[in-house]
């Protein structure tokens, strides 16, 4: 099999292409097996050092990446930004160059500025960079988790083996992405990923929470939210990013919920076999009603569980040479 992701930085979904996405999902299926063993650890990345640099608060993504690295037997070097030299005025570039000088193989980076991982990828000599979320730009592993989880669910229903289904399960699916798209890096990654996988993507949000210009995006803007819900196979509900000022883009959270929240009433409009995803953390009662979140059509728990195998796959591919990975 050809290997497009091996040995590459993982900065944005578009860099992977559909082949890269398929490859990464397949590797993740294999690592999912490891998760079900009694000793949940493989020696794959023994001797490699993975640095996790989170310049922005995060619990689940950071834990998930660090767990993934440890499952692969890599050593994890974790920079606690709050107590680091960054607070003393050190630049991102100096921080990264200092850490690379300690002999690391991969940098998992989260930063509030869009494009920071691209810049870091230019600054490092040999380390591979994995984007764990940059500003409003991209959060590729989160989108991959969503596709991975949806594929498992749909394969199960169709009685297929997930790892053999490639991306065919996405062909022609109606995916509806709802909510604060303007401030969402998850949405940008997801839209690229679903579109590359062959799905038809529609977005719905209040006018102020749409990105400024989506004319070149592979999406349609829903004219009628309710109609879009009726025809959706997958609904991706996004978090209202209050910390990024989403609140000031709508008159009130209450009005947002009334107009674009995934309320119980709206969930009734969905097809019986539709699926709901949410990147977490959920704000129950704002973008999603509690009963919808706990509905069996909602995949949020499974998404969280799939975080580790996806990130194992991302680390494994980034740290393998193209030759190794294609030896199949």
């Amino acid at each position, binding site marked *: 099999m050809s290997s497009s992701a091996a040995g590459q930085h993982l900065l944005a979904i578009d860099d992977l292409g559909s082949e890269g996405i398929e490859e990464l999902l397949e590797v993740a299926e294999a690592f999912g097996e490891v998760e079900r063993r009694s000793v949940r650890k493989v020696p794959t990345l023994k001797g490699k050092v993975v640095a996790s640099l989170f310049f922005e608060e995060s619990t689940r993504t950071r834990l998930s990446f660090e767990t993934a690295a440890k499952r692969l037997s890599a050593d994890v070097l974790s920079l606690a930004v709050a107590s680091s030299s960054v607070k003393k005025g050190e630049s991102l*570039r100096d921080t990264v160059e200092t850490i690379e000088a300690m002999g690391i193989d991969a940098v998992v980076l989260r930063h509030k500025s869009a*494009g920071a991982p691209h810049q870091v990828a230019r600054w490092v000599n040999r380390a591979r960079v994995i984007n764990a979320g940059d*500003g*409003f730009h991209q959060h590729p592993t989160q989108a991959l988790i969503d596709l991975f989880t949806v594929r498992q669910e749909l394969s199960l229903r169709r009685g297929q083996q997930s790892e053999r289904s490639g991306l065919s399960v996405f062909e022609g699916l109606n995916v509806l992405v709802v909510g604060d798209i303007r401030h969402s890096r998850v949405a940008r990654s997801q839209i690229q990923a679903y579109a590359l996988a062959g799905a038809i993507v529609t977005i719905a949000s209040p006018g102020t929470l749409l990105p400024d210009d989506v*004319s070149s995006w592979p999406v349609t803007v829903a004219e009628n939210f309710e109609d879009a819900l009726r025809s959706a196979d997958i609904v991706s509900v996004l978090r209202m990013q209050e910390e990024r000022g989403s609140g000031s883009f709508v008159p009130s959270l209450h009005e947002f919920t009334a107009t674009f929240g995934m309320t119980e009433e709206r969930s009734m409009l969905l097809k019986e076999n539709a699926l709901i995803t949410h990147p977490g953390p959920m704000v129950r009662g704002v973008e999603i009603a509690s009963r919808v979140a706990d509905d069996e059509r909602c995949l949020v728990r499974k998404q969280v569980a799939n975080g580790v195998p996806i990130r194992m796959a991302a680390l494994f591919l980034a740290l393998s040479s193209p030759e190794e990975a294609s030896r199949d």
Partner: protein
Amino acid sequence: MTDHMLIRGGTVVHRETTTRSDVLVVDGIISLVGEHLDIPAGTTIVDAEGCWVGPALVDLHTHLREPGGEEAETVASGARAGVLGGYSAVMAMPNTSPAIDSSAVVAQVLALGQASCLDVAVAGAITVGRLGERLAPLAEMAELGVTFFTDDGTGVQNAGLMRRAMEYARGLNVVIADHCEDDALAGDGCMNESSLSSELGLVGRPALAEEVMVARDLALAQHTGCELHLLHLSTVGSAALVAQAKQAGVNVTAEVAPHHLLLTEELCREYDPLYKVHPPLRTANDVEALRMALRSGGIDAVATDHAPHAPETKDRPFAEATPGMLGLQHAFALTREALGGADADPVLLFRVLSRTPAKIARLTQSDQRRGGHSAHGGEIAVGEDANLVVIDPEGRPVVRSEVLASKSRNTPYEGRTLLGAVRHTIVRGEIVVNDGVAQR
């Protein structure tokens, strides 16, 4: 003892035509223009064979960073970049630290200019500290010869205050110049607002932010009768608004920067802060409209917005990096590239880079009031001050950031082959650049 210099064998670029002429300069003044002039003994010969000889260039928009930003540029280093670019005069912008908002700082920068290798005109701030809150002492600064006022770096946000500034400036017979970007619309934006900014997850600075303020300023200028100059216009809409206002008789001039004539927002795709600038790089459509406006006279002048920045302020995440790029040393060739390449008309080039900006900056007459400046952007004719440039249109130098005269390295043109080379620059009769080498 008189000092004779003969610029020999060049094509002299006049206001409307070109002629093959020699130019004899005696004691800093052009004393003969014609073919095969006799050479008095002891005359310095400046070889201009195959070259254009024109009035040295005048920049309406230079950030010299002194006082306060000497790690990025000084008056001396900026002046050196200027003469290497063929300039004999530059307008120093007031966003220094402290801002140029009082006669004391004006005097300081003028003194630094006197010691440099070209004429430095000083732009005063419109408001105290450029904070947009109350008027700076315009009359006090005008007394020292300041004729051009701006809060550049930012626009005057309060329309009422801007109206007052224009009313006051009209009485002083000085120019009000504005950096047109409405902060409420530009916000934290760091590149052009477009489908690209939406894709890159970068907050945009919409064309609208510029055009809203251009429209406001034009209305205020029409109402007050003040002479208005619009700095670094960057959009199709701004060009149209200015053209319309000129038709209506508004007393307005406008400039465009070389980077807005050549570069587009696509360069931001890799998140390299070298391409971050305010107003931002726009689209190919905007570039085309600005070129057309410059050709038609809708936009009057090319001004560099030369903005040196120390590397540590650029080597940062895109949204956090300082906006601005260098331009002074290469503006002639870049403008030529934008206006038709090798076929561009030298008459037009010298009009937009020298003669018109000199008029806007009121530098066409020498001013002895403050130990003063000489006359710039004039005709190549007997009696004129010898502020001249000799440009080899066949020269093809390549931009190398490590050999720039500026103290900073933030040029977006690294590796670019330039259409033409500045061979000699003559300021007040002195050869300050000889064969492409700065003499001091």
